């Protein structure tokens, strides 16, 4: 009888020998540390992991992990990750990207990766600014945002990453803030377990060029009232004492105080991340202004993954074919013999 040795890893096993060069206080540090912890928990060997990225501050992350890493070119990470995973479905493939890399120059590759539902884990660090080029507005910057390239404020509306993900028929979307370390680690674990493209948007702070951009939701004094952490199967409640809840009012979501205006806990919605219809997921993901910003796993539904479908189609064709080599195949064509 063989004895199976269970390999266990600790977060430090995923650290490379490279000095981490992000600015002190940058939200990317927290994201990286949560990734180390999540990896150890998942237990995937560093040599069975490929961590890909594009260009930008966040895209430096692969250098800081002890896995196979590839720091590629601007915006193309999703396409390169698609190639890695399709070629090697047995590997754990991660795409590290930022709001500019993923949603501006890489927008096309991102939506198509999501549409195909290739089993990659996308970590989208959104600081609503171009940091590496020193402070231009990004495709997630709000209308009117003043930056070096929009001195009078932008005149364009931003992409909401969740809206784009769901619009591209995404099967997994989660959102977190960089300061919520334990939840962020859990979201990475959930994204790794999901078969298909999982997008985890991390709202990160850029201390140099966009300090405090997420302050209105991340600050301790407002956080409980301005965010809601969604958990599958649980009531959608929030507030310091979980005294508030979300209900449906016609076709709109409304925040209510439980016990007021005739609302009881029974009226409060229960989160179903596994519901195939994305309508409510989209409404939750788009909450802003008077409604709390949704955090946690907003959507997590099952669907065939691209890499598995490619592999199974090949297996299927091969099981029915007598061709094992190029020569076998060529001899099935209109062949004539010359003696």
């Amino acid at each position, binding site marked *: 009888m063989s004895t199976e040795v269970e390999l266990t890893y600790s977060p430090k096993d995923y650290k490379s020998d490279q000095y981490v060069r992000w600015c002190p206080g940058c939200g990317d540090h927290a994201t990286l540390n949560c990734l180390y912890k999540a990896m150890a928990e998942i237990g995937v060997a560093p040599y069975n992991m490929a961590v890909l990225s594009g260009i930008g501050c966040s895209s430096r992350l692969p250098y800081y992990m002890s896995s196979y890493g*590839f720091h590629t*070119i601007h915006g193309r990470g999703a396409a390169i990750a*698609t*190639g890695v995973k*399709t070629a*090697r479905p047995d590997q754990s493939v991660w795409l590290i990207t930022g709001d500019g890399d993923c949603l501006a120059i890489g927008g*096309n590759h991102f939506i198509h990766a999501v549409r195909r539902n290739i089993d990659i884990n996308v970590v989208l660090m959104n600081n609503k600014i171009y940091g590496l080029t020193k402070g231009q507005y990004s495709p997630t910057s709000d209308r009117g945002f003043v930056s070096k390239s929009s001195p009078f404020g932008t005149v364009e509306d931003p992409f909401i990453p969740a809206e784009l993900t769901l619009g591209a028929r995404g099967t997994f979307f989660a959102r977190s803030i960089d300061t919520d370390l334990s939840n962020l680690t859990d979201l990475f674990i959930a994204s790794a377990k999901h078969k298909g493209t999982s997008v985890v948007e991390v709202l990160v702070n850029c201390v140099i060029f966009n300090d405090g951009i997420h302050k209105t939701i991340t600050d301790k004094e407002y956080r409980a009232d301005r965010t809601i952490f969604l958990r599958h199967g649980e009531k959608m409640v929030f507030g310091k004492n979980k005294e508030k809840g979300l209900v449906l009012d016609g076709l709109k979501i409304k925040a209510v105080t439980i016990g007021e205006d005739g609302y009881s806990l029974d009226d409060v919605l229960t989160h179903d991340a596994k519901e195939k219809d994305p309508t409510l997921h989209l409404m939750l993901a788009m909450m802003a202004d008077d409604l709390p910003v949704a955090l946690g796993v907003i959507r997590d539904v099952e669907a065939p993954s691209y890499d598995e479908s490619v592999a199974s189609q090949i297996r299927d064709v*091969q099981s029915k074919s007598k061709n*094992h080599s190029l020569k076998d195949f060529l001899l099935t064509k*209109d062949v004539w013999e010359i003696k």
Partner: protein
Amino acid sequence: MTEKTKVKTLEKVVIRFSGDSGDGMQLTGTIFSNLSAIFGNDISTFPDYPAEVRAPQGTLSGVSGFQVHLGSRKIFTPGDKADVLVAMNPAALKVNVKNLQPNAIVIIDTDSFQKRDLAKALFTTDDPFDELGLRNVQVISAPISTMVKDGLAEFELDNKSALRCKNMFALGLVCWLFSRPLESAMHLLQTKFAKKPAIARANIKALTDGYNYGHNIHASVSTYRIEPTTFEPGYYIDVNGNNATSYGLIAAAEKAGLTLFLGSYPITPATDILQELAKRKDLGVITVQAEDEIAGICTSIGASFAGCLAATSTSGPGLSLKSEAIDLAVISELPLVVIDVQRGGPSTGLPTKSEQTDLLQALYGRNGESPLVVIAASTPTDCFEAAFWAGKLAVEHMTPVILLTDAFIANGSSAWRIPDLEKYPSITPHYATSYKGDDWKAYRRDSETLVRYWAIPGMEGYTHRIGGLEKDYVSGGISTEPLNHQKMIYTRKAKIDKIADFIPDLKVQGDEDADLLIVGWGGTYGHLHEAMEILHEQGKKVALAHFKFINPLPRNTEEILKKYKKVVVAEQNTGQFVTYLRGKIDNFTPYKFNRIKGQPFIVARLVEEFTKILEA
């Protein structure tokens, strides 16, 4: 056979099938080529089709042609001018006037040569032959549409479906003209329409009717016999360049023990490669039809990082889009085959026509110092060899390789002997596991070849990080050190230059003591070779040096180019290869021959120009 019909034995003949782009001329031409090849002739084909899928019916812009050259000896080109033209409508006749031998046989469907049809093709009189000055051609006029409809009366086909068979009637006539038995054509039709037996029967009926018509009309034209040629024994198929390219990649993957991966985006005239490889799941080929050209190459780079023999296929505009990603493969030193099936440019240019205008783009069209391997295929069947070499050099030397073919050889076809892969050289991936030292790093190199070692996800003990930033020569980590950068630039260049030790020397064909050396590269080989043969027949001393390996050049390039009194570099651009050669070889001042019409060279013109140079 009637007494009036004389049988002539010819060495070679050129036949052009021409009609509306919906008339099925490509299928007709393909079947005739295949059955001729099966009969034992050597063949070379050239499909010439419009960029529009369906241009307005009967108009000059909608004419689609398929030319086949067959012979009882080795055939190098699809031929300059047609000995036989099948013109399904007046537009087809008009478009092909310049492609006709003076005494050619022209087969026309009189039903589609009515007033209305003539007007659509912008004829102003009732006699198109006279109007075009075609006074010596032999015309076989047949009411093809009517006879096809009558012949298929019992088949219960609607009018449109019945008329679709008229191309097979024309094929039957041509088969009669060349004394071709119909069996293999019938077999090919049965295979083609295996799922529609009624359609197969109707086509075969039209084919037979056409043959019998020729036999019965007592046509006073000559019929021809092309004797079978002598081929090397073996099993043969008819193959076009794009399929041969696909098979070459499969062969390389098979030899290397790697999975073949193709990331690609449809683009004329390269799409066939994606389509063929998508079908080859039986051989384990992975294809991804990407969202754009950039993703096509990027998925391939990902697959290469993950350990596949990775390729991407495209044409000129797509190559432009892939430039940045090719550079990523250059600096990360990953194996990658980039196939550029050249077409007319610039921009969208002439999508269905052929040119050699991407050479300098392939060599230099990227930011920074970006050396890579460039190979060019010379004939449809040579696409197999060239693709095999591309795969071999990419994997063994950890580099992107650009393989240049062109629309002419990609769509053209020839008889091809199924190769014995056992006789091909081995392909050994340069895996990290073969590194001898105990301090492996991602950019450790073989001291001889300067090739770095390939470590792929899943290999324990070899995790590493690579990327588009400059690397430290020793550790492989990010480095901005000035001296290190210069060292890396020269190392990447030296790695490619050293590949010259692993490719064959340039071979010269023709006269040792030639007065003129013809120099070419890529898809012009057939025309240049045929021009040389004609010059030989005229007693001239000429030789041909045709390049497959462009970067690096074969070691003996300079020695050969300097050996002859006169050299002419012939290419389908304004002189890109000659510019490149002059940058490599001091005091090299050859004659130039350049044509950029989107069409293959015309052999007669080459002979004329080369004769002038000889006499100069």
